[in-house]
Every structure is written in structure tokens, then in C-alpha cells.
């Protein structure tokens, strides 16, 4: 029987209260939301927190458009992200990814904040948020700070969120001419990716004003394919360009061999999936420009 090691449990009633409790109980305290990453790790003793702070009652579940950004509360569940018409319209990459994250029952519990903070390189929403150039709001005893996704992952399963801090919100910049897509290859439905790629393009007058490409399961952390992004900027979208970007992404990733496949296969997937994601992102951006 798999049961977590003993711990003490508290139900937080406010964000400030949760943060104060984190500070009080030190590094052995952990926040729990959906629990679908943390509890399996606790059963296997890969995580042995002595104090769990349940944040499910906090009012951090929302998806809303404010001025030039879409804001998502950290407790928003995968099922809500999948069903959101606002996200599907603004950032179709979310629905692409959510359709292939775990299964519908797991998606009823898992949250976006938990997914990002778990910092599993094979987790899809990390790539989605990195490609969309999201930033996250992190609150701590001394106030809040905003961290870009390019500075969020500091190592495998490790983020820039401090032991007494809490991720509360994800912010996605909204710009004209946007298109985005997620591509994933998995061994079986609902599994973690063998390789996954999120791509976002922002078109202006027929050229690529900005691009975001993030690779999942292709290195120790989610990888932002900066060199491939740079290649695209200022150019007109084309099959040839997207193939070149794919080649660069394949060169720049650092996959490890494991039960899901050898390095050369994963590199191959990185290239193919980057090209496919860019192709679909461009088609969606062009569709939007017509409106």
C-alpha cells in the first residue's frame, strides 16, 4: 500500500495566511492544490514534507482579460483551462495542450500553478507558458514579485519560487496577430511527452514581429529555443523558414535517453514538432489577421 509518510495538515483561508504558515514551518512545509504531482511523489518518498498547507479554498481560480493581458489564477484547474473559450480564442495552444494532459478525471483536480511549480520538464503547460512569454506573480512575506518564464526554471524540478513564497497568478501578454499551437508525441494517451513543443507567433503586416518556442521533455528543464526564435523575427512565415527553425531547435535541445526513447529519436521529434507547431501557429495567426 502506498501511503505518504506522516505530516501535519492545515487548510489555508487566505493567501497571506498560507505564506505566513510557509514562513513559520520552514522548508519542510509545502503547499498542496490538486495534489496530482505532489501526492504521488509523497507516496514514493521522493517528497517528504512534514507540513502540508492546503490552498484549495483560496479564491485563485479565474481566467480573465485585463487591458493587454490575460490573467489566470494559480488554482485554475486543467478542466477549466480546456473549456475556456477566452483562452481558446486568444491562445489556442492551451486547448491543444490540455486535450493531451493526463486524462479528464485528473484534469478535474490538477491546477496550472501546481503544474508550473512542479517544474517537470516533460509537463506541457510549462512549455505553453514559456512560448507565450508569460510571467508569473509570486507572493512572499515581503510582498510580490513578477518573474518571466525565462527566469522561472532554475533546474530540474526547481523554480525561482522561494520556500516561503507562493505562485498566485500567470499573466499572458495579449498582442495583435497572435497564433499559437502545441504538438506532443506520447507513448499512450495521457502519458507524459516523449517530446513536446509549444510555439507562438505574432505577425505584423505579413512578417513575424515576435516568436516564442518552448521545448518540453527535451532537457533538464523546459527549454526556450532562443536561437530558433531569433531566426524567425522580421521574416515572412514560410515552410522553409519553419523547417530551418526546427533544425535549430533539434540542435539546441539536450534530451536524455530513457524508457521513452533514445537521444537521436528525441532530437528528431524536436525538429519535426517545432516545424509543425510553427506551421499551425502561423495558420492561426493569419486567420486572426483577417478578422
Amino acid at each position, binding site marked *: *500500500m*502506498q*501511503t*505518504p*509518510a*506522516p*505530516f*501535519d*495538515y492545515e*487548510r489555508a483561508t487566505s493567501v497571506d495566511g498560507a505564506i505566513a504558515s510557509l514562513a513559520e514551518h520552514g522548508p519542510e512545509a509545502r503547499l*498542496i492544490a490538486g*495534489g*496530482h504531482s505532489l*501526492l*504521488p511523489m509523497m*507516496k514514493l518518498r521522493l517528497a517528504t514534507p512534514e507540513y*502540508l498547507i*492546503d490552498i*484549495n479554498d483560496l479564491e485563485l481560480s479565474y481566467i480573465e482579460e485585463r487591458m493587454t493581458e490575460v490573467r489566470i489564477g494559480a488554482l485554475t484547474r486543467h*478542466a477549466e483551462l480546456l473549456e475556456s473559450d477566452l483562452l481558446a480564442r486568444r491562445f489556442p495552444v492551451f486547448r491543444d495542450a490540455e486535450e493531451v494532459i*493526463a*486524462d*479528464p*478525471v*485528473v484534469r*478535474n*483536480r490538477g491546477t496550472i500553478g501546481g503544474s508550473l511549480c512542479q517544474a517537470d520538464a516533460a509537463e506541457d503547460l510549462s512549455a505553453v507558458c514559456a512560448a507565450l512569454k508569460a510571467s508569473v506573480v509570486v507572493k512572499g512575506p515581503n510582498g510580490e514579485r513578477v518573474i518571466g518564464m525565462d527566469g522561472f526554471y532554475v533546474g530540474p524540478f526547481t523554480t525561482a519560487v522561494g520556500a516561503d513564497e507562493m505562485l498566485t497568478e500567470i499573466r499572458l501578454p495579449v498582442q495583435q496577430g497572435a497564433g499559437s499551437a502545441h504538438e506532443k508525441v506520447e507513448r499512450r*494517451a*495521457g502519458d507524459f511527452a516523449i517530446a513536446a513543443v509549444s510555439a507562438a507567433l505574432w505577425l505584423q503586416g505579413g512578417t513575424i514581429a515576435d516568436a516564442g518556442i518552448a521545448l518540453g521533455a527535451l532537457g533538464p528543464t523546459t527549454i526556450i529555443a532562443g536561437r530558433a526564435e531569433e531566426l524567425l523575427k522580421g521574416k515572412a512565415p514560410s515552410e522553409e523558414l519553419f523547417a530551418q527553425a526546427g533544425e535549430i531547435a533539434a540542435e539546441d535541445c539536450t534530451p536524455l535517453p530513457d524508457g521513452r526513447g533514445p537521444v537521436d529519436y528525441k532530437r528528431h521529434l524536436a525538429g519535426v514538432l517545432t516545424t509543425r507547431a510553427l506551421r499551425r501557429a502561423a495558420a492561426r495567426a493569419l486567420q486572426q489577421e483577417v478578422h
Partner: protein
Amino acid sequence: MDVTITINGEQVTRDVEPRQLLVHFIRETEGLTGTHWGCDTSNCGACVVLMDGQPIKSCTTLAAMCAGHEIRTVESLEQNGTLDPVQQGFHELHGLHCGFCTPGMLMTARALLDHNPNPTEQEIRTAISGQICRCTGYKNIVSAVRWAAEHEAAMRQEA
């Protein structure tokens, strides 16, 4: 610690260890062994119950996290000797063989029909995609859920 959970309509307060999983709370503390305990890794779906009407995997939820919420297990489906239409559908169309996955399948099917009374075959397959059947196969399960949907639609028309 004391937790108060509504389980199948009845509010109960129990002293539980914080680490107790919902599946063990249901089976051992409440003695409701209809909910099955399978893979323990949130893959197989044998342990699915409804939390506030939504299917969840009870092997990956702490009992303490359910305090203040409503849990429904397979035991709640039959009312006064009358099977729920999803149970009747599984009976009519042979939606089970060994029966291990059945309680989870039934609860997911119930939640699906509560939210979407007329699901397509693909919608049913998506809904149960987090649940594994290793003997009957999925064809009869999907047919059974469709049977329940049609049966409920007919009952609504009659009413």
C-alpha cells in the same frame, strides 16, 4: 484530526490521519467497499468517485482535502431497489466482466450524463479515457453508457 465530509448524502465527522487517502477513508473508515482501490498511481480509475459532482481519483486525494465537500460513491446510484440507468445499461449490454473497473466507470458515466445528457461515442470514450478495463473492453462500456443516455431521454419524455 477531525474532518466532516458529506458522503452519499450523509454528513459524517471522523478522526483521520492527515495522510489518509480518500479511497481508504471510503473503504476502511466508512466500510463502503464498492469503490475499488487499484493502481494507487492515478492511472487506472478504479477508485473514481464524485466530489461535488465531478469525477476524481480518490487514491490521489487526501480525505482531509474533502472536508466540507460532497462525495458520492457507487453505493449511491441504486435508489430504493431501482438501479440507476447507467447500472441498468451495464447490466443490459454486458458492460462488465470481472467488475473491477466498474464502480469507477459507473461514476464517470453518471457525471458525464449529468453534464451532457446526449454524449456521442467519442465524448463517452474521452470521458472514460482515464479509466482502464482489462477484460470486457471498451465497446460494451460505451454502448452501455449510450443505452443509459437513451433510456434517460425516454424517461424524461414520459415524465
